[in-house]
């Protein structure tokens, strides 16, 4: 049956996308993308599947009617007929039901809701075509277009009307009593149920206009919830009327995505038996409808294990979500002859290193000789060819690398602090070029400012008329094209229309990207200091933007919950990555440019495959919005920092949490691994830079198969031992960190008296 529906829904969904573009001024990108790339049948199929499974799962006539109504509204007459035939329903009853007063009201209300939510959903819908959507809770949401959403909520409401509002408290406390009475080992696991049940019961009460009961329910039980859900609870408690639920995004997430729990089989059986004994259908229904229980065989997890993984908006990641293979290895470096000029030799001789060639061979050889088995194919993602200037830069890089300081617990890096003074406009973003020659700041007054950190001043290219005058054959033509009159220590780039939240230099230092609250990403030339392209596509504030380490591509993420992949020469995104349930707050490229990590306000980190748009990893465990990410230089590990002041380390290959680094007392805005990956530096709003022993953290990973199979980590309690140092600044929050090629740590922030 699903197959039959597929054929019909697909054109339909495309039509939907197009009709939305009329409403949505900038939606044309979305439509174009939808047209460009083959829209994935997976997502549309899931609609049919979920609909039919729902029909099958419940004998409830009302539900069937709702589904029928949905099919009718979408003019899927054939499917509707099939369904009707199979369910044995009469057309009249359907119509009669449909025209019923209360029914209409519901439908009307939810249609409004749909209209209001349309903008939200259009963002998500538009992504359908581009991405092979993530597994996990995402598909249900993404797959549903703006139109069918209300119908689904009608379905949900049909269930929720069953329960007597007065009994909700009893149900809940009954379950609570039960969970408190079970054995300790099960109690921790079953306690996970409290929060999602609490939320859904509360929402049902609110949805059905039982305001008083909802309030009582909330007051009675909200104290039981884990403290890291406090922010969500605050949002919930503010919501006491059905009208409030309309257009509230947090709420839509709860109602449309399933909360994922991991529970051992034993505990699950226990729960199931209890609920069946008590005939507690209300709770059972919620579990069936809104929760996804990921059952595993084996020992129940301990409280600390559960706590370390929970905290995200939609529960933990399903185990399957992290099973896909990720090619985390590095790409082969292109072979470049390193010319050993005399100057260099002399320099090295002075330092008393006669074996000057050896380290170079090592650093090159290890990368170029054989392909890392975990690395993606060299041409998996088409990467731009290296220009001559890039090669020169690579050579510079390698030369610098030989002078790199080996860091370690006994050899900590020196730290330089770049302080932005008199930044009354509010410094919101900083970036430093890879060779540490330029520093740029994004400000709340919409400006981007670029400074030269070296004595070399910033110069713009001459104007076209002047350029035509110069001798193009001369040797120093590159010097001649620069306009000496424009030389200055800093340049200001005007163009944005809102605070600049993210900036990123291109690896070749010719471009600068900036993203802003005005919903645009801008590409600036650092040759002319003008804006080259304005990328429109995010209709909401863009929180972060980053160039790929190989240039050409860049990624952005923002309030619309969709991360986008762009190429500098396309004004439309190449990929859209949908699945996060809240704002995407930061994005980072994997060093091999094949993957993309996004951190979100839904407190998860996702890793996306750029080739096919799949979400390959979902990392849960943070208790607050994630504001910084960093890949280790070898590509194997990921560090993430959040508003909860904790840094979590992840093993990308196995999809496991490795370590939790506690110490910061405020949001972590900057994370960076040293060039060789021995040290992780974190910078925070609490005006400190902390250094962590990354080598030790990664060595300590337990390697038993059970952990790898189940993803249940035992975090060691030694995160304080990993901390190598705390360095305070003076009233200056650290918002950017950068290791120079020789492993000097640069920190940057705005002086904030």
């Amino acid at each position, binding site marked *: 049956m699903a197959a039959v529906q597929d054929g019909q829904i697909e054109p339909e969904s495309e039509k939907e996308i197009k009709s939305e573009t009329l409403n949505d001024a900038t939606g044309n990108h979305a439509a174009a993308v939808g047209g460009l790339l083959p829209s994935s049948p997976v997502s549309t199929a899931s609609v049919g599947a979920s609909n039919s499974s729902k029909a099958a799962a419940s004998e409830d006539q009302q539900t069937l009617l709702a589904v029928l109504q949905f099919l009718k509204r979408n003019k899927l007459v054939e499917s509707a007929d099939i369904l009707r035939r199979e369910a044995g329903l009469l057309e009249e009853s359907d119509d009669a039901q449909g025209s019923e007063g209360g029914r209409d009201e519901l439908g009307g209300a939810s249609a409004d809701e749909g209209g209001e939510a349309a903008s939200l959903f259009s963002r998500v819908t538009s992504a359908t075509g581009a991405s092979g959507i993530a597994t996990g809770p995402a598909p249900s949401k993404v797959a549903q277009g703006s139109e069918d959403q209300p119908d689904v909520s009608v379905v949900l409401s049909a269930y929720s009307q069953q329960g007597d509002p007065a009994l909700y408290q009893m149900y809940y406390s009954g379950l609570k009593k039960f969970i408190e009475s079970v054995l300790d080992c099960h109690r921790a696991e079953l306690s996970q149920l409290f929060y999602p049940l609490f939320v859904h019961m509360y929402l049902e009460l609110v949805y059905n206009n039982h305001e008083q009961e909802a309030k009582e329910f909330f007051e*009675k039980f*909200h*104290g039981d919830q884990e403290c890291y859900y406090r922010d969500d609870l*605050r*949002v919930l*408690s*503010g919501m*006491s*009327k059905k*009208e409030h639920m309309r257009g509230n995004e947090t709420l839509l997430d709860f109602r449309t995505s399933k909360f994922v729990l991991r529970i051992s089989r034993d505990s699950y059986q226990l729960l199931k038996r209890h609920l069946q004994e008590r005939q507690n259908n209300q709770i059972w229904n919620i579990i069936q409808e809104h929760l996804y229980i990921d059952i595993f065989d084996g020992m129940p997890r301990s409280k600390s294990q559960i706590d370390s993984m929970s905290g995200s908006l939609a529960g933990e990641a399903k185990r399957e979500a992290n099973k896909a293979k990720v090619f985390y290895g590095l790409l082969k470096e292109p072979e470049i002859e390193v010319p050993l000029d005399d100057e260099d030799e002399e320099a090295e001789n002075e330092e008393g290193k006669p074996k000057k060639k050896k380290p170079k061979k090592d650093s090159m050889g290890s990368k170029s000789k054989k392909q890392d088995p975990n690395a993606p194919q060299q041409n998996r993602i088409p990467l731009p060819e290296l220009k001559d200037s890039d090669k020169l830069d690579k050579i510079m890089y390698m030369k610098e690398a030989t002078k790199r300081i080996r860091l370690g617990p006994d*050899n*900590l*890096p*020196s*730290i*330089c602090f*770049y*302080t*932005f*003074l*008199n930044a*009354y*406009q*509010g410094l*919101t973003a900083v970036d430093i070029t890879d060779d540490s020659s330029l*520093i740029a*700041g994004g400000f*709340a*007054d*919409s400006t981007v*400012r670029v*400074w*030269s*950190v*070296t*004595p070399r001043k910033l110069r713009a290219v001459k104007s076209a008329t002047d350029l035509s005058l110069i001798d193009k054959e001369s040797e120093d033509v590159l010097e001649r094209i620069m306009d000496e009159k424009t030389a200055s*220590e*800093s340049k200001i780039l005007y163009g944005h229309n809102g*605070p600049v*939240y993210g900036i990123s230099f291109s690896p070749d230092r010719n471009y600068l990207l900036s993203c802003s609250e005005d919903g645009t990403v801008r590409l600036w030339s650092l040759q002319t200091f003008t804006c080259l392209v304005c990328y429109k596509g995010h209709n909401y*504030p863009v*929180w972060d933007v980053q160039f790929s380490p190989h240039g050409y591509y860049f990624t952005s993420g923002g*309030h619309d919950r969709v991360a986008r992949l762009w190429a500098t020469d396309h004004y439309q995104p190449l990929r859209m990555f949908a699945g996060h349930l809240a704002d995407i*707050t930061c994005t980072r490229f994997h060093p091999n440019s094949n993957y993309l990590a996004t951190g979100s*306000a839904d407190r998860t980190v996702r890793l996306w495959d750029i080739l096919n748009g799949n979400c390959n990893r979902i990392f849960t465990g943070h208790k607050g919005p994630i*504001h910084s990410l960093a890949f280790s230089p070898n590509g194997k590990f990921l560090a993430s920092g959040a508003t909860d002041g904790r840094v979590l380390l992840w093993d990308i290959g196995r999809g496991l949490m490795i370590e939790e680094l506690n110490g910061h007392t405020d949001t972590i805005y900057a994370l960076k691994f040293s060039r060789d990956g021995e040290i992780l530096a974190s910078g925070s709003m609490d005006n400190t830079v902390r250094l962590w022993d990354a080598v030790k953290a990664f060595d300590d990973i337990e390697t038993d198969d059970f952990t790898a199979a189940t993803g249940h980590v035992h975090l060691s309690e030694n995160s304080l031992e990993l901390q190598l*140092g705390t*360095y*305070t600044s*003076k*009233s200056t*929050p650290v*918002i950017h960190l950068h290791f*120079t090629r*020789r492993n*000097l740590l640069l*920190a940057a922030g705005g*002086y*904030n*008296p």
Partner: protein
Amino acid sequence: MADREERRFAEVSRESVRLMAESAGVELTDEVAALLAEDVCYRLREATQSSSQFMRHAKRRKLTVEDFNRALRWSNVEVVCGYGAQDVLPFRPIKEGELFFVEDRDVNLVELALATNIPKGCAETMVRVQVSYLDGKGNLEPQGTVPTAVQSLSDDLYKYYQQITRSILGEDPHLMKVALLDLQSNSKIAALLPYFVYVISGVKSVSHDLEQLNRLLHMVKSLVQNPYLYLGSYVRSLVSSVMYCILEPLAASINPLNDHWTLRDYAALLLSHIFWTHGDLVSGLYHQILLSLQKVLSDPVRPLCSHYGAVVGLHALGWKAVERVLYPHLPAYWANLQAVLDDYSVSNAQVKADGHKVYGAILVAVERLLKMKALSLSGSTEVRVDGMSGAGGTIGGRESSPGLSPPPEPQSEPGLGIASHLQAGGAGLPWEEWTPVPLPAMYCELYSFFGDSLAVRFSAGPSVGGSPPVASLQPPGPRKDTPGSGSAGSGGTASLDTTRKMPQLTASLSISPRQDGSPNGEPAPPSLPAPGRSLPRSSSCSSSVQRSRSSSARPGQRPLGPSRDVFPKARFAPLLTRPPAFSFLIGGRQMGRRCQARRFQTSFTPSAALSALPPRGYAHKLPVIGRVSKPLRRWACSHYSLHLPL
């Protein structure tokens, strides 16, 4: 817990909704208003929640109005205009109605546009680099020595700084006068402000030297009066230095021959001056000052000279402060004071003398309290009408705001009750339970303490009717230690006329509130002519203003003319700086009002180096003045190149 959670939200009552609807010309039923109110609350919460993400992404800890406006804009709601100030705007209650409003004074655009004294010293945004930690170990730069972190000084400025500090703290009184004068009028010293503030914070290290203390206070005065300076949150630092002089048992007070009383008087007046002119730069300042004064007053361990300081400080802050802090505290304090005064032993002689000082100060303070309170009660009805006709003028706008009928209400005094929660420093203060005491009751209670010494000076007794106007004619002299019988006598004679001459007297009222209300009305101690005050040009102009005012008021006031004329000259001499100071205020507010984007036009946001550190840290550092050069030089060099060998 649930209860607290509930109350954490903003609540808009249905009455407010109905009021707002009425002002827009719509009648609402109860039901609709209730629904609307609830929805408004919810939307407010929603907008607040979504505004916090703008704060997070701007990497700030403080939620600004801009953040909130962005949230509104993105949810398609019209933004709130005109509140993009950096600091909290004073939020005031009207006592009569349950109404709260943000004080929003008129800005004279013409004056602003033609103003030539736009604060200078707007510094360019720049990047500085500093090797903070070498090999992750040493801290090359001792943190905390840096008021310099903000700006590097040019050689000229540095020389100026040295000259000024030397001459002010040096021996030559003439040179000091010149220096103070220049400090008061120089328009180019914005960049030096932190250094001067730093020097002033050295009061703690010279508490044995009255002369030096005096000079430093004069320096404060000059800085405060300089119309080109935007003090910003340096006000806090200045206030703490001044408070030190008022409240601390200075080392100089050990010797009874030292006239530290005068110093305290002067400092108190200076405090009120700072507060009147710059109080709105720092939110919650009023509360903080009151709190510390109250603390000292209620601490019996403190010596009497500290108590004296607290009393004169309260007195200088206006009768409201006296009413709120001193008056409720009096019964408790009285017992202590009485014990001191009743001890006739020889060993107690000195303490007793001090006690009499305190007694006198309290007496003066409560007298003015009574007078002003009586005035405010009767004034609120009559003054409104004829008072306004006389007033007009630029500050008319302020006068007309209904909350100000008690004249010396400080402009940024935070409201009571709900409003005080909004003030940073206001939380946790015990003033929520404070309720105004009716005048007769207050009088009776005070009479029980002071007996006839109160009655003599406040001739009319509890019958309020005629006496308040007299009070207004009799501005309590700032010299508490010489509460001469002359003033009492004149008060007595004037009171005889009062009943007959009501109209004239109310006419004069229109002036005195203005004088009290104008920022510079209070602070000039006639006994302590600040060296910088002898500008002949402006003093004449001020007195002419004074005269023209009194002449324009009412002819019937003539007979009182001479005494008034004498008074203004002596007392209101500092009024001369009023016009520039006022326009400066606008400038300050204007700057504050600006949206972030243009904030760089302000002069120079203070470095936390001063304000954040507890002043104690500087206590021993005054001699460092000469040494400041070192870090300065270094910065000057690094100014030109950000280059750092990497």
